[in-house]
């Protein structure tokens, strides 16, 4: 509580003056009586004992009025959980190979379903390891032969999750393929464009002032880049230029990573990375991200959890405080007091003479 013009409170000095004036004026009137000796002996009723009440209420009302004149203002602290936001573009492979079955909680499910499930959990949280990315800007881009922006960078994760559920494998053969080079380039472009837009808007719309502290691309794919205009490393260098980290996840069979098929036969190379995976790893490393492999729901979730942990957003609590005029209750009380004083004075405390 603060008074914006406390000098008005000097008016309170008028109140004793008013009381004095009232007292002096009160002295007039009255019923002349020859002798008030016995009248003075009359018992004091409640009415007489409380005679001061209306005057007191009036004085109180005046005080409140003066108080209101001094412009009381209440401090309003707005505490905004102001996360220095992270912008995340999630790239999801929807090529036909995503139709392959992997284990999902003991059952078989397509990679697509598992990916959708994990993406959703990553965004909204799964009440367990993943807390959800509340307050982060998240967008989804799917890709097969062409990269599609399913959802632009947004804070409304409900819509995002809804859209993520709608993702499906591309069933048009001429659009099949894997173009994560394009997708990564698109994502990098979107992120940097969004930031530019934000910079422009910063001057205009203070409410949207969400600073993007870090930009992240999470690339989920199950194959190698085989079409598209941009090479993966091209996209990676763009990302690096714009300070975007790329996390890459290769979703494959648990065994496939260990078995390398050549013309000569199957070689078991434990822990060996395929060519595509090498590219992914390179993309990640060159931009400061990490590369992980996953082969089922649990491992995929573990990867996302790891990313989730790595990309901790700083919770900055920003306190705004401003003074809002706050006088309605006082004014109301003053009026009520005035009215009740007038009512009392003219009814219960009305003097006949």
């Amino acid at each position: 509580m603060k008074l914006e013009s406390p000098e008005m409170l000097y008016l309170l000095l008028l109140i004793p003056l008013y009381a004095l004036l009232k007292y002096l004026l009160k002295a007039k009137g009255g019923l002349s009586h020859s002798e008030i000796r016995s009248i003075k002996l009359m018992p004091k009723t409640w009415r007489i004992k409380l005679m001061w009440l209306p005057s007191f209420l009036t004085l109180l009302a005046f005080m409140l009025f003066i108080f209101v004149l001094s412009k009381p203002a209440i401090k309003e602290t707005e505490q905004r959980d102001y996360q220095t936001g992270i912008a995340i573009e999630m790239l999801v492979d929807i090529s036909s190979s995503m139709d392959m079955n992997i284990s999902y909680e003991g059952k078989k499910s397509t990679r697509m379903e598992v990916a959708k499930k994990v993406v959703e959990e990553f965004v909204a949280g799964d009440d367990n390891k993943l807390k959800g990315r509340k307050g982060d800007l998240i967008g989804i881009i799917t890709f097969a032969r062409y990269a599609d922006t399913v959802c632009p960078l947004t804070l409304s994760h409900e819509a995002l999750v809804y859209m993520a559920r709608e993702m499906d494998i591309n069933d048009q053969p001429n659009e099949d393929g894997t173009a994560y080079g394009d997708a990564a380039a698109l994502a990098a472009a979107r992120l940097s464009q969004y930031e530019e837009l934000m910079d422009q808007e910063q001057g205009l719309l203070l409410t949207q002032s969400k600073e993007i502290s870090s930009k992240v691309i999470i690339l989920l794919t199950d194959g190698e880049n085989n079409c598209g205009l941009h090479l993966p490393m091209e996209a990676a260098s763009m990302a690096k230029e714009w300070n975007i980290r790329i996390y890459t996840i290769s979703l494959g069979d648990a065994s496939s990573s260990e078995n390398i098929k050549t013309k000569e036969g199957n070689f078991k190379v434990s822990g060996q990375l395929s060519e595509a995976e090498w590219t992914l790893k390179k993309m990640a490393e060159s931009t400061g991200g990490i590369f992980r492999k996953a082969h089922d729901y649990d491992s995929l979730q573990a990867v996302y959890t790891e990313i989730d942990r790595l990309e901790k957003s700083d919770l900055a609590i920003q306190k705004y405080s401003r003074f809002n005029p706050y006088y309605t209750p006082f004014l109301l009380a003053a009026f009520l007091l005035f009215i009740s004083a007038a009512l009392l004075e003219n009814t219960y405390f009305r003097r006949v003479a």
Partner: protein
Amino acid sequence: MLESLDLELIRLQLNCKNKVDHLLSGMYRSVFKGRGLEFDEVRPYQSGDDVRSIDWNVTARSGQPYIKRYHEERECSIMFLVDVSASCDYASGEKSKRDLMTIFCAHMAFAALRNNDRTGLLLFSDTVESYTPPLKGKSGVMRILQDIMTFDSQSEKTHLAQALDFFAKLQHKRSIVFVLSDFQDEDYWEELSILAVHHELVVVCINDLREKELPASGLVKFKDMETGEEHLADLSEKRARNLFKEKQSEWFDSLQQKFTDNGLDHLMISSDDDILEKILAFFHERERRVADESGG
């Protein structure tokens, strides 16, 4: 103002005249007798004179029969000592206490006039405000009545003792004295008693109906007419009103008791009383007592 005053006086006069002529004047004389016989002269005996009235001392000295002549002292002075303090201006109804005093004095003064007595007036508050020595005739009576009606007192308070003292020193000749006041004062008993010894004293206590009882009403601020003191009272409470009534009647009773104890002839006149009736009743009572005292 003057005209209305004249009218007032005439009305008062007419009002009183009839009643006084028929009812009061006769009784007045019998109640307020003169002192009795007063030595007049000694003169030679003439035939037909009562032998009982022969003054033997003078006869012996002169050798001639002389008789003593007396005449009855019939002529009295009547004095009104009227309280003109502020409290006497109080009126709850039509007539203020002052008006009641005027009416009382008018009756008495006209009765005195009929009997050829002199009338005088002393107005007092806490000092002696005005003094008119006893005068004969109608003009004197009218002047007195006008004074009582219209006199503007200097002070608002009452100091009875001082007025009584002043009068006692001034008037040595025995006269009939009416003290009219509301007796809102204290410590005057000694002076009253002294006055009662030298004069035929009648105290007339004038009061208002509202001094005995207050009407049911709301909050009323009362202001003391003499001291200016104020007090707020709640007349809506029956308990409070009853207390007032009780206290006031206590006060009146004690006043009356004190009058009696001091052997003072007194009259209590309230604003709702018929003054003539009160006077007649008082006269009857006093007549009986005078008759008792004189043994006949």
